[in-house]
């Protein structure tokens, strides 16, 4: 048995895409991280090495985030929700927790996302993403602090440097979604060479729009799984370390550590409900993908793209299934280990009671409650659409459109999907155009507008929207294939060559760009 474990560990350690998995694997079969810690984890030698910030590293990250060099897999996937009072409250909790960190602090910024998943997440740039689903379910400020402290710890302990699994997961979903959208545009787009120059035209505008709309709907639902990284996408050892440091920070900030148990129990409940959904989802998705791919039989251009897409999707979905099977870990095991750490190191503090009054005060304050209700109504509209109950979806979205968050991307994108389902294409477009602050939009929302402009042959408008997306998401890679298409539409040969050169730097995009470039005048 031991030989198999060592062999498995050796194999894992030799695989570049599973960097760090060997450590996690040994952690799963050997003594837990928590049981090996003596004293408070925040004072541990392993943690002390992170007290001092490396200015060069921090500078590189900042530069990357302010510029456009964030890899597509690391770019924010969700729309943000702008609820100022809630934002200030959550940031205040992070500030309070930060005071317990003995070292230098990186910039830590809370951002609320439109996801109805439970787990928050953090990126390497110090952004802590808090899904609305978490805020709908937590019972106290202490519980919020437990989850934010955990996420802060991932950043403080530089876990992103080793988070290959996380990258892999996000990359899978991004690739699936963007490939489907691109393939749909390609499949429904004809190539007219009669005028001597390449001209793309849409063969089925309504169909293309519907498919993209559906793809976006799917993406937002899939991301509910994708961003549940709190439990599934990180190595077990990183989770344990973040649990330990997060608990230390909580206690130093005067929060009740027992709240960590509350959130881990809830997470366990959430995972229990997701598991059968996920299995059905992956099976159904695989079949549907294969069905839809059979429709791609237009001309050589789309045929070649078809082969590329087909191979890519099959591999991706298989890998996604394997990934989830491999990386699932028990929230209750983590809870048990954490409680033993508390009993050993914090005998008195572990008895502190949670404050159940502070969070409800914020949650129930009119500006927060109305905004959260608006998002809930929009989510209910999406759920109704998923059941093909269009009138019900319409009723929900009408309510959401009367809320204070009515012009935020999630609400308008949902309204767009409802209008499409009603067959009101022109009104659907107006919903998207009503988005006031595009800095809140996620890639899938940008995708809709960019695809719309490309379909109309309006390369100039597409490029303007791509530029906005690049600025706000910090990633040139995300829409580089669309950028190439837009410049081709504008017949800007110089720009086409320039984009092609840049595209060559992104392994995940390179092949698509080359395929598109083959369609010449």
């Amino acid at each position, binding site marked *: 048995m031991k030989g198999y474990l060592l062999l498995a560990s050796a194999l894992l350690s030799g695989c570049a895409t599973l960097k760090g998995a060997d450590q996690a694997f040994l952690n799963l079969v050997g003594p837990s991280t928590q049981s090996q810690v003596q004293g408070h984890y925040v004072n541990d030698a392993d943690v002390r090495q992170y007290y001092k910030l490396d200015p060069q590293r921090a500078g590189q990250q900042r530069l990357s985030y302010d510029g456009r060099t964030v890899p597509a897999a690391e770019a924010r996937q969700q729309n943000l929700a702008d609820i100022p009072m809630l934002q200030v409250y959550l940031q205040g909790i992070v500030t309070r927790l930060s005071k317990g960190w003995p070292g230098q602090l990186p910039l830590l910024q809370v951002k609320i996302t439109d996801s109805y998943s439970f787990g928050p997440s953090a990126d390497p740039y110090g952004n802590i993403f808090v899904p609305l689903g978490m805020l709908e379910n937590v019972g106290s400020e202490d519980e919020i602090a437990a989850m934010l402290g955990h996420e802060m710890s991932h950043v403080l302990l530089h876990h992103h440097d080793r988070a290959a699994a996380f990258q892999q997961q996000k990359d899978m979903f991004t690739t699936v979604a963007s490939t489907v959208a691109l393939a749909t545009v390609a499949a429904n787009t004809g190539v007219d060479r009669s005028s001597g120059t390449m001209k793309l035209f849409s063969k089925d505008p309504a169909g293309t729009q519907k498919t993209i709309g559906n793809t976006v709907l799917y993406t937002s639902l899939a991301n509910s799984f994708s961003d549940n990284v709190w439990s599934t996408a990180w190595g077990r050892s990183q989770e344990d370390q973040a649990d330990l440091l997060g608990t230390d920070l909580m206690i130093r900030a005067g929060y009740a550590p027992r709240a960590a148990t509350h959130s881990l129990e809830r997470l366990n409940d959430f995972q229990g409900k997701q598991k059968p959904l996920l299995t*059905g989802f992956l099976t159904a998705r695989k079949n549907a993908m294969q069905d839809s791919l059979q429709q791609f039989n237009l001309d050589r251009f789309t045929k070649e793209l078809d082969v590329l897409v087909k191979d890519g999707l099959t591999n991706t979905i298989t890998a996604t299934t394997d990934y989830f099977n491999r990386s699932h870990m028990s929230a209750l095991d983590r809870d048990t280990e954490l409680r033993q750490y508390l009993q050993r190191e914090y005998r008195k503090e572990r008895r502190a009671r949670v404050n159940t009054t502070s969070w409800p005060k914020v949650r129930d304050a009119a500006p927060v409650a109305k905004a959260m209700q608006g998002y809930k109504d929009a989510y209910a509209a999406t759920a109704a659409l998923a059941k093909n109950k269009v009138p019900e979806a319409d009723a929900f979205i009408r309510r959401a459109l009367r809320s204070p968050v009515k012009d935020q991307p999630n609400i308008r994108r949902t309204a767009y999907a409802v209008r499409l389902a009603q067959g009101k294409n022109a009104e659907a477009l107006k919903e998207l155009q009503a988005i006031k602050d595009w800095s809140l939009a996620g890639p899938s929302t940008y995708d809709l507008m960019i695809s719309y402009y490309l379909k109309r042959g309006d390369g100039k408008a597409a490029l303007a929207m791509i530029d906005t997306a690049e600025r706000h998401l910090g990633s040139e890679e995300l829409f580089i294939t669309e950028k190439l298409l837009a410049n081709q539409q504008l017949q800007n040969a110089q720009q086409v060559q320039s984009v092609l050169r840049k595209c060559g730097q992104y392994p995940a995009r390179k092949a698509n760009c080359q395929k598109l470039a083959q369609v010449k005048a």
Partner: protein
Amino acid sequence: MTRIFIVLLVALYSQAVLAETHVIKAFLADPVEVVDEQGKLQREIARKDTPKQPIAVLQLNKALDLVQVELAGQKIWLDVGDLRIEPPLNVMELPCQQMPQSLASDTHNKSTLGYGAGCSQ
């Protein structure tokens, strides 16, 4: 006045009903602390001396995270932090139908799918 009385009565009754359905599945701490109804330490019990079979929860004080059980013929209060209780006290409050689901069917294009399996309730 009557309405307030009814609300209080329902709250009291539901607390008792809720508590009756829960059991202590495991004692996680060693020793386990016996506390008073306000959570103040009274005495300790070694884990080896705790019952190995599940014990029914008689009362639950969610605000203080305490449960009342009967041990050796005595009603005592225990801190939930020392125990594994089933079903868990902290669950997702969103109803299952608001969990992620996809389109059940799409007549025009099948690139969007449904989960099918539904909730595991």
